[in-house]
């Protein structure tokens, strides 16, 4: 028998007993909210009139030509309020927290996009917000740290471990254990203990629901391939889910190969093995002793040694494929999209762009839907450093 919230043998609830009642309460509150038209109306109201949904679908002919043919359609999550898909999830979770009577919000963030989105929703709804962020990420995503502070959030730099996303999650979990009765932890991806992977998927599913209708309307057909970057995996699950039942649509996740698969990377699908980590059973980068390895990616949002359990399941069942792209290729992908289509994507999203060459080489003259999960303003410091370094 699989425990609740399982995707095949992945998923589950592997947290300290102190958190289990909160996880059970969250699960029940989520089921109750999701069945309530009032909750959906509140979520939709903010998504439509505050975030600006639906996000556009942009044809990208010059990018397609430069990537080896076919047609490319860009789902423009970069145009959302706060600059990424993360806000879709935050609105749902913070509204849920209010419904549950929680008076304080905490979150982890890697690239800062989830932190900014959480801080933004908390400002809108009048809740105090604490964001844990690895000290390395605080440095490379300075702009987002400033934005979070301007929005009234407290940003806590985390110096333990690799001082990146996984350590920020560790610290957020410690905060939650200590303050579980009045605090809701807004996890930013389709990871962690049940119900998070399912809840975040349902809240991000709007991406694929819109894109599917937009493709039918604009292209007169479904895409042949859907491509998205994966760190924890929320934007990918968001765009994949409404296509899972369409057998003609191939689903491709793109993870960060960092310096290359033989060097430092964050390619959990390519190099990870089954483990229990951050509340879930999934694939993780680990050594023979079950110790987590430090991931590496130029993009803070993909710099994570685990992956959401549903992705592990989609890979195992063969429904989705996973490719990887190096730091260097991602930088090239970013420049390519900027110069062919006038869109500066986040470094995370640039991984999906950079995979287009591989996709067209394999699938040929097809229609590819790419989720541009966020915009690149936050990455200018990193980009400047690499330009100065002659890359």
């Amino acid at each position, binding site marked *: 028998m699989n*425990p*609740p919230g399982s995707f095949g043998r992945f998923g*589950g*609830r*592997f*947290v*300290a*007993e*102190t*958190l*289990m*009642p*909160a996880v059970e309460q969250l699960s029940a509150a989520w089921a109750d909210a999701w069945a309530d038209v009032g909750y959906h109306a509140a979520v939709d109201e903010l998504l439509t009139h505050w975030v600006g949904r639906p996000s556009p679908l942009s044809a990208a002919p010059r990018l397609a030509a430069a990537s080896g043919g076919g047609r490319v359609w860009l789902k423009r999550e970069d145009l959302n309020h706060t600059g990424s898909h993360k806000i879709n999830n935050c609105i749902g979770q913070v509204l849920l927290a209010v419904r549950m009577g929680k008076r304080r919000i905490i979150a982890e963030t890697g690239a800062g996009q989830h932190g900014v989105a959480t801080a933004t929703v908390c400002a809108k709804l009048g809740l105090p917000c604490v964001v844990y962020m690895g000290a390395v990420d605080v440095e490379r995503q300075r702009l987002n740290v400033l934005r979070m502070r301007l929005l009234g959030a407290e940003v806590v730099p985390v110096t*333990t*471990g690799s001082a990146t996303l*996984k*350590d920020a999650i*560790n610290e957020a*979990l*410690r905060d939650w*254990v*200590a*303050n*579980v*009765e009045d605090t809701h932890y807004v996890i930013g991806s389709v990871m962690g203990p049940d119900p998070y992977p399912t809840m975040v998927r349902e809240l991000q599913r709007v991406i694929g629901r819109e894109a599917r209708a937009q493709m039918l309307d604009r292209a007169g057909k479904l895409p042949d391939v859907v491509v998205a970057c994966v760190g924890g995996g929320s934007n990918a699950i968001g765009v994949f889910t409404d296509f899972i039942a369409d057998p003609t649509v191939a689903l491709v996740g793109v993870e960060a190969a960092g310096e290359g698969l033989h060097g430092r990377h964050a390619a959990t699908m390519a190099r990870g093995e089954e*483990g*229990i*980590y*951050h*509340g879930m059973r999934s694939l*993780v980068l*680990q050594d*023979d*002793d*079950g*110790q*987590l390895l430090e991931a590496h990616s130029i993009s803070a949002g993909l710099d994570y040694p685990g992956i959401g359990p549903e992705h592990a399941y989609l890979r195992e069942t063969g429904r989705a494929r996973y490719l990887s792209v190096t730091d260097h290729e991602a930088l090239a992908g970013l420049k390519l999209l900027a110069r062919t289509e006038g869109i500066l994507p986040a470094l995370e999203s640039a991984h999906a762009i950079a995979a287009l060459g591989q996709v067209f080489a394999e699938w040929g003259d097809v229609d590819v839907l790419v989720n541009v999960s966020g915009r690149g303003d936050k990455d200018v410091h990193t980009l400047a450093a690499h330009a100065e370094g002659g890359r």
Partner: protein
Amino acid sequence: MTSRIAAAFEGARREGRAALIAYLTAYDGGPAASLACLRAAATAGADIIELGVPFSDPTADGPAIQAAMVRARAAGATLPRVLQLCEELRRTSDIPIVLFGYANPIVRRGVDVAMRAAAAAGVDGVLVVDLPVESADLVRGPARAAGLDWIGLVAPTSTAARSAAIVAGASGFVYAITQRGVTGGTLGAGDDVADHLAAIRRRSALPVAAGFGIRTPQDVRRLVSHADGIVVGSALVEASQAGPGALAALVMALRAATF
């Protein structure tokens, strides 16, 4: 046959005191320093050793034990080496040893293999912080099959139904967490802790040990009439940094407060 754990609680009870359970992170300072500290704790009067298995991401632990795990891993700690340490401690001491850790290093090694190796190394019980009662069978079955006790962990937030299930699935003793939060905090004021412990004791035929936030002999005295055992962790880990002598002094002071 009475287990070493049961005998330790029974021995303390006959002396009219609570058992003192000393937590140390295995391999902290390297194998030699760690073994010296474990022996010092046993000699100074600890009744049970709780041996922390180092993990890269100890989300239930506070700063003192996190730092100890970083030192231990830097010194080369792995699960097999921790078990080697148990074996060496077992050569000179009959003190019960409970492994205290996270699921992944055990699962990675293969649960059956890990539990048999632990039993062979002289370990008496296992406690896995991130395996709640719903998922406990993953390790509990193999642990029991290897002759090890499965220590149940009850939190201050556990509902009555959850506490009952945890106690029912436990053997050896029940570990009652005395504060919300990670290890290494301080005890809150008020009667909450006493009520929490009383509720678990009513439910449990097993000894109940209180832990989390207990640092000083004063803390021990406050809880001693409410629990069958008292766990001290972070404070001992910190004391052990000054060497086995300083550690032994704190163990003696804590032990004196268990009457």
